[in-house]
């Protein structure tokens, strides 16, 4: 989404509103003339874990995220929804600097984790990523044994001083990820031999093995069947007791089911942020409403 596209898209829309001031939408209390470039809803939260202000991301000359302000509270599950290409994944990947690996990706603005600037040039990304873990869209276990998959993170960060400690971390992580009972007898077998849902839980176990504070999930269930999805959602619910979770999802129902707050992105702008309960029954912005009611298109 370039700036050009955004502008060219807004002008016909505003002119249309000028010619049709009383649509039946406007009569239902939603402010249709409200510009989506201004975020609706309360950005600040009590007990802030991460705080993002005026975040802009561009790939080369294409800007993907425009001036997003967002706070994430400790131990909350925040869902980011929006149509494809709305910048939600890009924004998520800024939070542990996974965008660094992408050539020509420029991030500006302030992103803070517990008052520490994530994009501080002096900051080392290795410990940052140990604090802000990530689970990806496609289950991507290493082609190694289940044990090695989980043990890898603690090993590279030197979290375990002995084999016994490492065993303990692996077991705890697998237990937290709800995979222990299925995997305990086959720890030496390759992680790639598990089913899709199990693989994704293995990836979650691998992520929580390094005890991160925040877990970013980029459409973690989009490759899974409904039963596996339900198990992951249940897991997210359990994990929210100990971790702060930011999840990007294409499934609005999923966002409604798992999250405490929901952020709606549109063309790189954060359009609306609010309690999930409110967003799904009474959204304030017309674009949000159109999207979650299936009117987009």
């Amino acid at each position: 989404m370039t700036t050009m596209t955004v502008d060219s898209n807004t002008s016909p829309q505003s002119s249309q509103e000028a010619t049709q001031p009383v649509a039946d939408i406007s009569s239902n209390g939603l402010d249709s003339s409200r510009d989506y470039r201004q975020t609706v809803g309360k950005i600040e939260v009590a007990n802030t874990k991460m705080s993002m202000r005026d975040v802009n991301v561009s790939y080369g000359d294409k800007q993907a995220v425009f001036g997003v302000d967002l706070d994430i509270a400790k131990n909350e599950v925040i869902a980011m929804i929006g149509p494809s290409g709305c910048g939600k994944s890009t924004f998520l990947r800024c939070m542990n600097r996974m965008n660094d690996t992408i050539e020509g990706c420029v991030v500006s603005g302030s992103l803070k984790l517990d008052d520490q600037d994530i994009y501080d040039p002096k900051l080392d990304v290795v410990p940052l990523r140990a604090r802000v873990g990530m689970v990806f869209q496609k289950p991507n276990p290493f082609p190694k044994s289940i044990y090695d998959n989980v043990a890898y993170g603690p090993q590279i960060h030197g979290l375990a001083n002995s084999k016994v400690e490492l065993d303990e971390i692996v077991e705890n992580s697998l237990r937290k990820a709800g995979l222990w009972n299925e995997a305990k007898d086959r720890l030496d077998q390759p992680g790639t031999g598990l089913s899709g849902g199990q693989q994704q839980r293995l990836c979650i176990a691998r992520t929580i093995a390094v005890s991160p504070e925040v877990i970013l999930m980029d459409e973690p269930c989009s490759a899974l069947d409904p039963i596996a999805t339900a198990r992951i959602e249940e897991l997210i619910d359990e994990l929210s007791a100990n971790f702060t979770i930011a999840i990007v999802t294409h499934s609005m129902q999923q966002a409604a089911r798992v999250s405490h707050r929901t952020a709606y992105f549109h063309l790189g702008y954060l359009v609306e942020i609010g309690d999930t309960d409110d967003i799904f029954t009474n959204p304030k912005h017309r674009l949000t409403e159109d999207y979650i009611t299936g009117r987009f298109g």
Partner: protein
Amino acid sequence: MSRSTIDIVNRNLAKRYAKEKRFRLFGLVSILAGLAALCFLMVTIVSTGWGAFTQSYIQLTLDLDPEVLSISDPQDDDQWSYANYTGVIKKSLRERFPDVTSRRDKKRLYRIVSPGAGYQVNQLMQDRSLLGQTVTVWLPADDDVDSVIKGHIDRSLPENERRVSDKKLSLIDELVNSGQLKRKFNNIFFTAGDSSEPEQAGIKGAMLGSFFTLIVALLLSFPIGVAAAIYLEEFAPKNAWTDFIEVNINNLAAVPSIVFGLLGLAVFLNWFGLPRSVPLVGGIVLTLMTLPTIIISSRVALKSVPPSIREAALGLGASKMQTIFDHVLPLALPGMLTGGIIGMAQALGETAPLLMIGMVAFIVDIPGSFTDPATVLPVQIFLWSDSPERAFVERTSGAIMVLLMFLILMNSIAVLLRKRFERRW
């Protein structure tokens, strides 16, 4: 409406199937043509080369008389070196055929045993305690005799048009009848170096030369190629310079191999002053030649590692180095090895660059190290193919068979490696 659609579809159906059938037929014919060409090649090589693996041997009873050998003092090493080993053979032949008396016939008689057979006696007499004893040995027959035994010489031709005279034929027949002339497995072919006498010529020297050359090439090109590929693929910034390097690597892969030979001649021999005809230089030149192949295949192998694996490792907080060495490289290694082996197979079959650095010389001695003058299998084949003797033609094909065997072996290992380490993500 739908009825008419179905009618149209049905009308064209036969045409469509006929088209498909024709296409399949074309494919089949081309595959058969390819197979036929391959079969023809294999059949000609095998049919001419098969004989190289057997050789006619003559059984002789040798009286290792010190006097005939002209060894007066057994302690004198020089006398052992210059002893008249051929004399022993000649004496034995005279005793075997006492009715051959004329000087001309005697000369012919001596010619049924390989002129180089004295070397075999020499080898035999490394055990010096045999001096003065009588031993029965099988000595290689002359290549003409071998040709007669293998039926390459037409006995119905008049004597003056034949390579072998009537007298010689009768001698051969007599030996065959008494069971003293037999075809046996050709040990010499696998244990000797080159020789001007075909029955004394072997491929061991060339095989060892190839072996040393390939070891040098492998040790140099694989680490360098893999390191270059990893740097270019994972670390190098994407800019005009790396693009330029990439284009040039691809170009290098297409450069005719003789150019590398010229480069080797100019740089390694003339400038660095390395010795001529040695596997070390051959290996370096072949390294230059195979490097682009290995770099390209290694980069492809690295590229084929799914980005999700890198993301997973990076997302856990692994450094770039850890990501590459813990996850990416193990997954890419089978592909790299395959590329390396195929590069080596290519190097094994290469002749042109080695000609330029003198590995084409006639070298009888079997090389023992990287700096001994040596030749390689394909060059040996090239050399032999120039020789007119029937036995050399045979040996040329035999050597080709050995070379092909090695190539097939190496390619099979490559396929095996790929199959064995292929992983599903």
